[in-house]
């Protein structure tokens, strides 16, 4: 089976879409294209809000990822927790799209994991981010059931921190299919992306992440400010979501 068939058979037809995103056909252009409409594939696509989950449909999976994300980014004086800022919706939306399907990745075999990790300095995968979450979250839940006898989401904050610390250090084994350290990194990366990216993608609600650090967001002109030396500018952040 070639790669294209493999993708379709996994129900990941979307994986090939972005490579053919623009226009219908390969084009011959003579003269300057006169269309003035913005190209749809270059417009930001707002995350789906308030609807059904697309990838994190299983409630246990969702509770597990929420329990993890809210320890990675807890509520405190510096702002809301990850889930309060919309990071779970952000993740679901990202995993439902081309990021989740690994559209940009090179997923051809053969893969010799030991050699690839040694050469590249980090583990390499033939699976997509979406597939890695699907099996990783199940494995975390199974781990909590085995070691503590309860659901992962029912663990105490201290116990979750202990497990996360163990995953980060590569000291916890989640089974042969999962590289525990790499799965931790993937979750940490996505939680913080959700907290710090434009709110149009579902996370960073009320621009809480940007307010935390003092980033003014999607502003585009700092000519009035560049000559100011070392001053707090206290600029109110703006996002790509159009203001009424």
């Amino acid at each position, binding site marked *: 089976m070639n790669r294209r068939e493999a993708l379709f058979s996994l129900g990941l037809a979307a994986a090939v879409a972005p490579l053919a995103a623009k226009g219908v056909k390969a084009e011959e252009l*003579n003269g300057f294209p006169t*269309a003035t409409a913005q190209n749809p594939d270059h417009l930001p696509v707002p995350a789906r809000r308030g609807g059904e989950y697309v990838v994190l449909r299983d409630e246990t999976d969702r509770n597990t990822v929420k329990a993890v994300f809210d320890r990675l*980014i807890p509520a405190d004086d510096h702002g809301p927790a990850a889930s309060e800022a919309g990071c779970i919706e952000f993740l679901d939306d990202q995993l439902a799209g081309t990021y989740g399907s690994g559209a940009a990745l090179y997923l051809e075999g053969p893969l010799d994991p030991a*050699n690839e990790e040694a*050469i590249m300095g980090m583990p390499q995968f033939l699976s997509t981010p979406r597939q890695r979450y699907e099996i990783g979250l199940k494995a975390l839940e199974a781990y909590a059931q085995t070691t503590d006898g309860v659901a992962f989401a029912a663990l105490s904050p201290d116990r979750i921190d202990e497990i996360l610390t163990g995953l980060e250090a590569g000291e916890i084994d989640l089974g042969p299919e999962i590289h525990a350290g790499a799965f931790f990194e993937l979750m940490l990366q996505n939680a913080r992306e959700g907290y710090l990216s434009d709110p149009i993608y579902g996370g960073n609600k009320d621009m809480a992440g940007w307010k935390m650090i003092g*980033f003014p967001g999607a502003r585009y002109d*700092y*000519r009035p400010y560049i000559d100011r030396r070392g*001053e707090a500018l206290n600029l109110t952040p703006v996002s790509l979501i159009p203001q009424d």
Partner: protein
Amino acid sequence: MTIERPKADVVIVGLGWAGSVMAEELTRAGLNVVAIERGAWRDTSTDFPPAVDADELKWHTRRTMLQPMSVETTTFRNRMDQTAAPVRNWSAFQYGWNVGGAGTHWAGMSWRFTPWDLQVASQTRERYGDAFTDSLNLQLQDWGMSYDELEPYYDRFERIAGTSGIAGNIKGEIQAGGNPFEGPRSRDYPTPPLKDSHWMSKFRETTQNMGYHPFTIPAGNLSQAYVNPLGVNMGPCTYCGFCDFHGCGNFSKSSPQACILPVLMRRPNFTVLTETEVLHAVKHEDGKTAKGVRFVTKEGEEGFQPADVVVITAFQMDNVRLMLLSGVGEAYDPVSHTGTVGRNYNYQTCSSVTGFFDGEHMNPFIGGGALAVQIDDFNGDNFDHTGLGFIGGAGIMGYSTDGRPIQRMDNLRPGTKRWGSEWKSGYARDYGSNGTIFCQGTSMPVRDAYLDLDPTYKDRHGQPLMRMTFDWNKNDRDMCSYVTDRAVEIMREVGGSDIIVDNQADKSWNPYMQTSSHTQGGAVIGADPTTSALNTYCQSWDVHNVFVVGASAFPANAGYNPTVTVGALAVRAAQAIHQTYVNNPGPLVDA
């Protein structure tokens, strides 16, 4: 089905910076040009207006404008006794695709190389002697031409691109405030330098006081409105900070979109086929010339574009790969030390030094792709290397390119946890109060750093991927640690605390750990066909109607970014084609 297209005077493979410059020169001279670009059409107004551009997740984190590895990747190993593995995920290899190529989302640092960079082999021998030069164990070679020969073409590219800066040397006269170490320029930059950010002014003042020679780096981010020689209008940079990895919605960043395509596209003798990938060039039976290129469209239809001249401008890696796939020139073999295609692969040696400034507001979000102050006191051969045991050096810059919050989320004082409340308070404390010094250094070639076709892995069309065999060599490592120490001294002097040093050359090279996307060599120019694949007009020594332009042409790398030198080589090659070659096809230089 096979599409057979009408014959063109010239077919250009890849419409990025080099391809656009080429196409502009050749169509202006009246030649009929077809460019084939595997990405889609891209334009400033419709693709990256300010309301779309200021989006870190889409453009920087997800790299939506770059060539995905699923389209084509590279395999890599450090040494010949290893089995190379494919680069599967986003890494330091940041190739452009779509009309405009990497020229759409580059940062705009617009350097010329120094006279020494083009004649490393002969000038090192001359200044330090044979014994020292031989002891380096490098595969040093000259470019086959001097800086003075390239100067007019540098000038032409800077005028087209629109470059802001301050000259340090006009016709041999040193200019106050500029870079006194640069090669002589025929005139000043098209527009004045950009302004300093707060961090840059600190860096400038400190290095000045230390006796060095700080200057604002030349930038493809325009300091004021400008009309280029093609009649295209550009606007002033707004220091938006969404520059590299992003397009520019203001027509302020030098790019094919802003500077060339508005004119090129209106020429009746120019055609571009988009979303069409060239598979390889096809040679005539006698093997002496090419008759055109074979391509495949997005829909999978194959076709042939006949042409009298084939110009390959598909970025450094693909330039070399297309030569190998087309059998243009002999593949390099590091064991027998024969062949030239794939030889003299080289990279860019980088390090960074970050310091923290309690309670000080650096306002990092005010930035520009090429907004920086640099000293060149430790670059190239600007300092005496006697007794140091290495050659080359690095530019040392205090820069303000961007304040992207996802990219910077680990940029915290040493020892800060990367998650939990500790990360949140650490990021709140450190985001706005650090400054980074970047050292961008030379990279010298060695015999066993090279490119060839991978025996195992294939692209989506079933053609072999490029395989890279590379690690830092002793000269790169020694140079980098020497220069990094200078940057640490500067950081101490500026008053940064909790200093973090990232010296990329102190561990084995791998593509996921680099901060430089500057990959060079593999199809290098020179005066000697046994050590170079191309003559100095970027013409293949073996197949005389094939010209290959890009950073693939650099026999060694300077302590600078590559693009202005790529642009200058493109202008020079284009002029040689329409002034000389088409009237009298054949080698432009006798082998």
